């Protein structure tokens, strides 16, 4: 393993210090690609499929994460007020809210606003039933909290404090629902990370094996290059470059494919998911470049290991 790593470092520094060899290597790489079009395209297609699967997973991951975050932000505590709450009691209540560091925002909802919202949400068929001469709904405060690990326990404690305040009729925060929701978020993240980890491993194995097979199928070519006097560096360069090009081409094609899927899904279903407060996002830029970089790196390493192994076996003879 150490020989492999030190050999890779030496090869890379030799290549970079000799521009003529590099230029010549690019020319031979291009010639090799054109001579072995079918093998090259097969490799690129396999890499494209592998990265597309991973990319679609990332698409799902980001959007699911976004949805969960959006639902998370919607979690709130509602403080219903007595109808006869005084101004000083209201002021006192607002001081309690502002003194709590975990409170992100507070929204006051008057009785009239609450009644108007209720009527607008009710079906038209039921509206005749609501022709009341009085407004039965109380005024309230809607309180949103900052994200934290112990948010639920904090909401629970805060609600106990609020219950003892004068002017407060009742408190509502859907305790059971929040508890289940937070467990679901944790479970989802672990599950997604586990799948992501397995997919990444699978991706690396698929890309590296595809490239190794393509190199092994050209053993005769490597042997011939050595027979006619090529240096070991000269033998390796075209294969290293080809591996990198395969990784780059495969990943770029995959991203176009994923982009197409994203465009289709967004144009067909964005209006439907608007109600959930969700915007169908594409993969974040750092991850896009990371995906391309990973593919190029795996292509490079797979090519290096394969040519190293083959040359090692030849030299052992």
């Amino acid at each position, binding site marked *: 393993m150490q020989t492999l790593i030190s050999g890779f470092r030496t090869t890379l520094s030799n290549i970079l210090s000799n521009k*003529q*060899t590099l230029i*010549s290597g690019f*020319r*031979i790489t291009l*010639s090799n690609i054109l*001579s*072995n079009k079918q093998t090259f395209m097969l490799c690129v297609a396999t890499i494209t499929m592998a990265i597309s699967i991973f990319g679609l997973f990332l698409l799902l991951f980001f959007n699911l994460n976004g949805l969960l975050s959006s639902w998370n932000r919607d979690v709130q505590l509602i403080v219903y007020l007595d109808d006869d709450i005084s101004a000083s009691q209201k002021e006192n209540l607002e001081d309690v809210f502002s003194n709590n560091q975990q409170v992100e925002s507070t929204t006051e909802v008057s009785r009239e606003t609450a009644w108007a919202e209720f009527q607008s949400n009710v079906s038209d068929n039921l509206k005749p039933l609501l022709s009341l001469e009085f407004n039965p709904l109380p005024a309230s405060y809607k309180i949103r909290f900052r994200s934290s690990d112990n948010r639920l326990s904090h909401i629970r404690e805060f609600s106990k404090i609020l219950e003892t305040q004068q002017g407060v009729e009742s408190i509502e925060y859907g305790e059971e629902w929040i508890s289940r929701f937070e467990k679901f978020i944790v479970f989802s993240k672990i599950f997604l990370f586990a799948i992501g980890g397995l997919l990444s491993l699978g991706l690396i194995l698929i890309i590296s094996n595809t490239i190794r097979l393509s190199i092994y199928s050209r053993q*005769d*070519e490597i042997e*011939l*290059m*050595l*027979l*006619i*006097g*090529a*240096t*070991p560096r*000269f033998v390796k360069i075209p294969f290293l470059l080809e591996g990198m090009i395969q990784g780059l081409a495969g990943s770029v094609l995959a991203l176009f494919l994923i982009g197409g899927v994203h465009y289709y899904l967004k144009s067909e279903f964005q209006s439907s998911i608007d109600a959930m407060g969700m915007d169908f996002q594409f993969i974040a830029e750092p991850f896009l470049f990371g995906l391309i970089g990973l593919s190029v790196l795996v292509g490079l390493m797979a090519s290096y290991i394969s040519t190293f192994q083959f*040359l090692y076996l*030849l*030299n052992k*003879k």
Partner: protein
Amino acid sequence: MIQVFNVVKMYDGSNPVLDNISLEIPKGEFVFLTGPSGAGKTTILKILFGWESFEKGQVLVQGINVGKLTHRNVYTLRRSMGVVFQDYKLLPNKTVFENVSFAQEVIGHDRKTIRFKTWEALKNVGLTPKKDAYPAYLSGGEQQRIAIARAMVNSPAIILADEPTGNLDPDIAIEILKLFEELNQKGSTIIFATHSQEIMKAGNHRVISLNRGKVVAS
């Protein structure tokens, strides 16, 4: 030019393939290397171009001690040689022109030189009309001529030919022999491994005979 002193080569510690072989081939000579199958012809050629190691002895090629070469510098020896194989070893996905120019690309010639020398080499073997053809569409004789063109394109001092006429008809084999003789007249040292008596009779050159890893006649 080529000196072999008491070379012993064994595979897996069994009976030696080359058993204390010594021979000398002066510069510019044409030599047939003959013997039955398993005599050691191919092995001695592989040792001469640094493809096989050996257990004992010394091999000097143009003053280079072959036994001291490592995989990092053996290419210097191979660049001074051209090698022709019985199975031609042409790259199937490259055209005739690309197969011959490949030998110059690996030693770093510029494109103008590559084009010129490749054209000259193909002219010498009479295959310029086929320069854009792929090996699969050529006859055995034509493929071997391409292999010879590739071997001679860098004007090597030594050309090693391992049974180059083994897969060819007698008439074509004689044509191939004549090509090698032309190269020899231009100054290259030729070692031509063969077990064909007809070829050796047609060639009338020095013969080194091997049998069971030993030189039995020279």
